[in-house]
């Protein structure tokens, strides 16, 4: 392993911002009370949590009181899917075929319990189509859950259109915005999102803390109706009986700080809805690869895409081998290749996009963060072409 680490796997997790860790220290070492306590030492911490709610609400343009803290998006997604279906009279839910496993596998679990699930297909650019959703969502549908942006390809789904379509209907609209929050401008009001999941560690917050945006009520046919969601974590009285478990005050404070930093960064760099601070670096890398590594395919190239994600197929070079050789040089990327998964199954996201099986295992994902420097990406340019060339020589790939 090289001494130098160039971390380009930020859709997997990010480094916590130093400011975030600074804030958290205080609530581990000094103000370590339990915010549910009666004494002031503990109960004063409620204001810290309230502050974090406000920061997050600002980031997604929602109301602070609607933010519930969880252990992360996996918990939030489980809570929504299982909680909504349990309480609803309707037995049908709609998700996309490219959801994260924390939605996909829960849906499959519900299917075994006897619920009906429709999996929306995606285009060759990796996005769902509103028309498909309009056909799939019926009077029998309790919940529609479509991710804001895909973790593998970075493709952004037509969330605003779906929200507009489901507005005022008795179908609950949930989006797993784990990859979007902090990276692009997410707005629950503009997009008519009912429920939204997010994770702190995807935008330089701490691991193990995230949340669910959950306004309790939505308009159905012009009237405010309660959205019924069963409790998921059962236990104490925290967060208005909605989510039990001692408040993770240090984590929540860190999450709030991360939200502030993301908001500041986005306000500074947002040009026409795009985080140019990150996308310019991504675009440079993309351009370089297109020019210098022949036969490269850029997946979801024509879809609206997260500014930090670059998903590439290098025919003739197998994904896991690319990762190993880049990792030897200190560059961290990820791949959906069959060889990287425990089950050796082919990558379902790319499969849903109709990518040819002959090259599907040659796919690599670069995901940048605002901490990546131009020098780091220059280093990638030096290393990558040779890695691909070598592996193509071994495999006998002909251009």
């Amino acid at each position: 392993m090289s001494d130098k680490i160039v971390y380009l796997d930020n859709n997997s997790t990010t480094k916590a911002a130093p400011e975030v860790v600074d804030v958290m220290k205080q609530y581990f070492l000094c103000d370590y009370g339990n915010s549910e306590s009666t004494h002031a030492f503990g109960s004063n911490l409620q204001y810290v949590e309230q502050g974090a709610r406000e920061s997050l609400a600002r980031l997604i343009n929602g109301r602070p009181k609607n933010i519930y803290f969880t252990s992360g998006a996996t918990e939030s997604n489980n809570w929504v899917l299982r909680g909504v279906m349990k309480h609803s009279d309707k037995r049908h839910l709609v998700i996309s075929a490219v959801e994260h496993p924390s939605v996909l596998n829960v849906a499959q679990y519900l299917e075994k319990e006897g619920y009906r699930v429709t999996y929306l297909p995606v285009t060759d650019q990796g996005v769902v189509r509103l028309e498909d959703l309009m056909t799939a969502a019926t009077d029998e549908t309790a919940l529609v859950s479509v991710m804001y942006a895909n973790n593998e390809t970075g493709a952004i789904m037509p969330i605003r259109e779906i929200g507009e379509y489901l507005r005022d209907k008795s179908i609950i609209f949930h989006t797993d915005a784990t990859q979007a929050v902090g990276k692009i401008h997410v707005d629950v009001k503009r997009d008519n999102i009912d429920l939204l999941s997010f994770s702190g560690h995807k935008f330089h917050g701490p691991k193990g803390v995230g949340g669910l945006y959950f306004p309790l009520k939505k308009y159905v046919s012009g009237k405010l109706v309660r959205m019924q969601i069963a409790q998921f974590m059962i236990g104490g009285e925290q967060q208005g009986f909605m989510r039990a478990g001692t408040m993770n005050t240090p984590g929540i404070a860190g999450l709030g700080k991360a939200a502030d930093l993301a908001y500041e960064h986005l306000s500074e760099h947002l040009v026409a809805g795009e985080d140019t601070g990150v996308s310019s670096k991504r675009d440079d890398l993309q351009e370089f690869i297109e020019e210098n590594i022949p036969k490269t395919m850029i997946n979801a190239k024509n879809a609206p895409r997260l500014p930090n994600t670059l998903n590439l197929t290098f025919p003739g070079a197998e994904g896991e081998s690319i990762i190993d050789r880049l990792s030897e040089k200190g560059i961290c990327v990820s791949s959906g290749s069959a060889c990287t998964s425990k089950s050796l199954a082919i990558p379902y996201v790319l499969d849903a996009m109709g990518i040819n099986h002959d090259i599907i295992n040659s796919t690599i994902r670069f995901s940048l963060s605002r901490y990546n420097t131009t020098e780091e990406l220059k280093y990638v340019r030096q290393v990558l072409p040779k890695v691909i060339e070598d592996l193509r020589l071994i495999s006998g790939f002909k251009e």
Partner: protein
Amino acid sequence: MMAWDYPKKLIEMSRNPQYSEDKVGLLKLLEDNELQKKIEQGFVISAKKDVDEDKTLFIGSYGSRACGDYMTLFMLVNDDSNEVEKVSYYNYGCTSSIGATEMGAELVLNEKKFKGGVFEEKADGSIELKVTNQKILSMLKEVDEQGKTIKSVPKEKHHCSVMFEQALKNILRAYQGKTLFKDELTKEDWEFIEQEEGPLVCHCYDIHEKTITNLLGGIDEELQGMMAGGEFEKGDTGGFNDYFHRRIREMTKAGEACGKCHYDRNPSIDDIIVKNYPQYNPKSKEEKKVREYETLSFIEKVNRINKVLEEQIRPKLALEGGYVSLIGLEEDTVKIELGGSCKDCAFSDRTITFGIEETLRTNVYEKLKVEKVDLF
């Protein structure tokens, strides 16, 4: 996604391949554009070519790009001295695939002699390989100073070394005079393959019976070791059977795509296991059926019950003017509604329910209970 915990040797060999580049020179020796083109397209299964007055180039390949693994092996053999002069390969695969191929190439070159080294020709004309997947795996192991294994190739990656062995086998076919091109396989070729390799078992990954049979001994050894280590209880025949299934899937990829070949092909992987190791057959067909039923999803369970109702129960009831509807399945309780002449029949509770329960127990799952519900 995950990181594999590979032995050091494997990573080293994969990152610094020694034998891959030689193919460029070997292909030049061919001076045959047709054959070169076929090799590049991945159509050559086994072929040979005299490349010099006293040298022969053998070519054998295996795998497919869609499974993420494909390789072509080249071997240059001196006809007079019977020595392997060069080994090279094409490999589209992961770290462990490239590493295993490098190790295989090294083992072949260490043997020096082609016949009598890489393989033995027995009196009856059959061939025994000296470089096998087991040997590759054992050479890749990481051992400490006392010779104790500290890290082996992950079990899920054993198919990479199996692939090398298969490509080597195809080289020996060429040696025996057989030329096979994927795009030009004749009926005779298919018959030859079936005769050599046994019937086709896994249609998705092209795995024949003999490939599976050859692996069983090694799996049995693993199992014995695990039993000695207390990981398996003696007498857990069902568990043994499952273990064989899983290992065959990991080593060959057979049954990974559509899954049919585990039980539903003729012969199926299960047939092959039971034929060779009858002691690892779950005690009875019923036990197998129970194990199988328990792994089904809810929908599949319901479908199976419905099928028996449709085929065996409903025709009988219809003769009497009655019918049965499947209302639901809660754990092992099948809820049914009886209608038509059955509805008010005094015997319906005992006779019909009992009869249906018996039929479902014999045909689907022995723990099923049937409960009559009245919806109106």
